[in-house]
């Protein structure tokens, strides 16, 4: 974290793209300021010496990750088509993928 640089408009736009989140231009400046405030605050962790540590902490039973993954019935009160904005013939319908078709 030593070479941490402050977050600018480009970093916010990049994170928003990765997160598939539309961020209106008029909100950008406020988000830049708030994200800097948050990231500056959490960066106090850099004061914590952790170099010698190997294992991160995970709560819960250690056996969970090794349990056999067996399919089982999960009864639903409604089928997926009742939930989706558009659904037909077993598929969720989405608008065309413009970028892929153009390529």
């Amino acid at each position, binding site marked *: *974290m030593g070479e*941490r640089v402050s*977050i600018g408009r480009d*970093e*916010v736009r*990049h*994170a*928003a793209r*990765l*997160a*598939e*989140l*539309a*961020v*209106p231009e008029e909100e950008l400046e406020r*988000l830049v300021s*708030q*994200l800097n*405030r*948050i*990231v500056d*605050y*959490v*960066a*106090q*962790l*850099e004061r*914590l010496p*952790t170099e010698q*540590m190997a*294992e*991160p*902490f*995970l*709560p*819960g*039973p250690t*056996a*969970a990750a090794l*349990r056999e993954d067996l399919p*089982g019935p*999960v*009864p*639903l*009160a*409604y*089928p*997926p088509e*009742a*939930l*989706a*904005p*558009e659904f037909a013939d077993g598929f*969720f319908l*989405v*608008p*065309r*993928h*413009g*970028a892929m078709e153009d390529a």
Partner: protein
Amino acid sequence: MSGAAAARQVGERLRAAEPLNAVLHWSQALLDAEGGRVDDMAAPGPLAAMPIAVKDNIVTVEQPTTCASRILEGYVSPYTATAVTRLRAAGAMVAAKTNLDEFAMGSSTEHSAFGRVKHPLDPARVPGGSSGGSAALVAAGVVPAALGSETGGSVRQPASFCGVVGVKPSYGRVSRYGLVAFGSSLDCISVFGRTLDDAARVLSVMSGPDPLDATTVDRPPMRVPEPLPDLRGLTIGLPEEYYPPDLHPGVAAALARVRNLVRELGGELREVSLPHSAYAVPTYYIVAPAEAAANLARYDGVRYGPRKVGPDGDFRAVYQATRGQGFGPEVRRRILVGTYVLSAGYYDAYYRKAQQARALIADDFRRAFESGVDLLLTPTTPTPAFRAGEKTDDPVSMYLADIFVSAISLAGLPALNLPAGRSEGLPVGAQLIAPSFGEERLLAAAAALERVIAAEAEVR
């Protein structure tokens, strides 16, 4: 009382409590159906005709589950949470779905897409959050118990603000199946009660392994413990880091009174140190947003929820428009922070570092308990309930409302809020913390204190 009579009574109380804005969905017809179902049960069980409010991020088939978000407006789950199924099988009635900070992200229930919840004792103040609707309903006497969820203190903190009991179980004690995921390594369905006994009975019924949640621990359900007559033989640790010199004077006075009561009941007090708890809030605000950024990726306008079609009309535009318009400001901030700390070039500096800090925080608790301390006693919150609007402009000042509760969540430990007096008319809470799966002793010891604390008396 019959289920039908209980349904009518709680319906009247829900109508009277409408100004609190604590409820997102309820209807007298659904309540009457719940009452009828209980009256038809051959053996209604330990929670017979007990009305319970459920935070609206816990799914139920009969009502919508919105997580107080526009992105899930109108969503009705096709299945019911294990916790709710177990409560119903024990005779409980789902009374209402309660308001919350959107996707449980917040400490004041001001970040709800459906308006803020008002504190039952002072409408200008917040009830805490994120489970503020459930806390307010219990505090207002509408229901004896309510479900909330904790990721980093979202039941204990509002319980403290509202002057009710709030119990967070050990991670893995209660199934998360049907709790809408926020931070999966932290999330716990938790419970509010008017009394410890109400909360303990609800927790006992909900607890135990669930094949539908692989992170539940294979232990028998928690028993409702007999309250201890006194605290003789118990050592209560006082972590110095949780009693800063600038602690609110009303909170400090309430905790001083609790320490006196511990001594009067024959308990031993011992100072301990949890040095890494100082890093709990920054650690939490890396780990939780990172997990949230992943968990909330599923809200894309394809599988459920309203779809917003962007100007370009392709499906990335659908994702971006649906998520951009569907999530509120705090959720958007956390998704962006979570995405940023996980992104290439920053992962080691933030997320890996936070995982290591989390291990150090948990290890402090382990060592304190191994040194012979049975329970830890701290304030639940640094101040009583604050005014609405006071912290909405500065996200970090809002985050610091959870300074005494987040380390426990990171360590996966059980803890509770016990109402411990009032300061200028506002409730103040004491927090008791136990080792993992030490809920029974935690509740039994807290019940000894509950009997002698004058929870509604002014402390200074």
